[in-house]
């Protein structure tokens, strides 16, 4: 899935609270509950009968819940989650440099001309393909991890920022100029706020891609974090921990996305209303 395709279904239209489907009734979860029940029965009673070794590979939901409880109580899971979030946040701070860069590329054609070819060449390289080279550059460790995460984040943010600036209504810029705005004021008081909704979209996509890259990076070269947790559990054959880790990764990614979306609705109420 390309970055643009991801952006398509994340248009700010979704930010409008009234557009969200109403809270589905419990009936909507019937199939999920049935599947869980089936899974429980399968892994608890049926699989052990046929092949106990396979049973280990399919931990029952109840076992997963118990393991999750243990991991939380011992502080192990929160510790790994925090380590991952720290990496994501650190990489994000660097990736934010894509915003001014994208504004410059979107606003000045000369900058665009020079940098876009470079962007076109680098962008299709998956962040994970950078892992070998980055290990040689930075060694195993946090820097290398954050570099991979950074690569996952920076392109969606950059691409969306450039597009956002290109889409700024030129009459708004004219209006500002005829009210006496100079170049700096046009950039900071018109182009930036007008582009902000789509920049936020880019940030959401970037955080998501970065989160995926993070787990992969931790699988390879980290001694903590959720990616490390599940890889470590693999060597101990603790499938229950693996599942707990996977669910945590998914949940944290979701919370991150919803959080940014909520924040955007709060901070940019006009953009949600415009998109309606």
């Amino acid at each position, binding site marked *: 899935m390309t970055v643009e395709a991801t952006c398509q279904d994340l248009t700010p239209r979704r930010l409008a609270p009234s557009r969200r489907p109403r809270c589905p009734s419990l009936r909507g979860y019937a199939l999920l509950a049935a599947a869980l029940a089936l899974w429980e029965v399968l892994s608890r009673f049926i699989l052990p009968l046929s092949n106990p070794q396979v049973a280990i590979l399919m931990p029952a939901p109840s076992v997963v819940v118990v393991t999750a409880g243990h991991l939380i109580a011992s502080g192990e899971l929160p510790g790994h989650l925090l380590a991952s979030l720290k990496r994501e946040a650190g990489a994000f701070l660097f990736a934010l440099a894509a915003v001014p860069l994208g504004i410059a590329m979107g606003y000045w054609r000369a900058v665009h001309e020079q940098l876009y070819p470079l962007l076109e060449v680098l962008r299709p390289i998956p962040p994970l393909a950078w892992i070998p080279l980055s290990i040689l550059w930075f060694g195993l460790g946090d820097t290398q991890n954050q570099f991979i995460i950074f690569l996952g984040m920076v392109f969606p943010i950059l691409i969306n920022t450039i597009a956002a600036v290109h889409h700024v209504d030129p*009459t708004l810029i004219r209006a500002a100029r005829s009210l006496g705005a100079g170049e700096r004021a046009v950039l900071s008081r018109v182009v930036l706020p007008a582009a902000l909704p789509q920049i936020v979209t880019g940030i959401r996509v970037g955080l998501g891609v970065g989160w995926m890259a993070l787990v992969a990076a931790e699988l390879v070269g980290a001694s903590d974090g959720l990616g490390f947790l599940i890889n470590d559990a693999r060597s101990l054959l603790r499938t229950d921990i693996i599942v707990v880790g996977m669910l945590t990764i998914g949940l944290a990614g979701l919370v991150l996305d919803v959080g940014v979306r909520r924040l955007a609705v709060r901070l940019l109420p006009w953009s949600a209303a415009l998109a309606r």
Partner: protein
Amino acid sequence: MGRLVVDGVCKIFDEPRGGPPVVAVDGVSFTLENGEFCAILGHSGCGKTTLLNMVAGFEAPTMGSLSVDGAPIRGPGWERSIIFQDYALFPWLSVVGNIGFGLDMKRTAPDDRDRAVRHHIELVGLGGFEHHFPHQLSGGMRQRVAIARALSVSPRVLLMDEPFAALDDQNRRSMQDELVRIWQCEPKTVLLVTHSLDEAILLADHIIVMTRRPGRIKRRITVDLPRPRDEDDPGYIALRKTLRALIREDAAT
């Protein structure tokens, strides 16, 4: 203050796909004295917007010169603020923020800024909507904000490009009356582009009729009907007939 001189202005656009260049405005000269309200009337495509854009400073003339109070026009600036057809309000700013934008650009002292913003909100009758955002306003109210925003910087010349074309008939009439009222409160040199005969007669002191392609001045007519203008007045009807004939004969050729 606000004497606009347009002298021998031509604008030629190069056709991007190698066709012949388009002469949009061809040798237009006129002078607006301070406080005059002038309407430019003409068919679609006759170069009205192009002319206005040159006065605004968005585009440079191919030939000729433009000046306000003797100072040549070199680019956009607050002495020539503009009201657009589609309002062009900043959606992320409230009514107060939009109206205060130009004052901020002029680095007006906060007290004076607040006073000026309040004054212009009252002037256009938007009291009580100070903290609304553009998307929360009706079309007519948005146009009022645009008018207040353009006036707040105390321009020497106020430019308008079909400002009421996006409004329905009723709204347009009331906004036209409103504009005349505001203009009488705070006289200003106004250059209004329109293709509506009635809008030109209702609002302007002078009407410049342009020919179609290339855009030249066909006739300049002074409107000396008393304000407020009455559509049933014989003078109004006669003037409307004259203008219609001028526009018609152009369409035939």
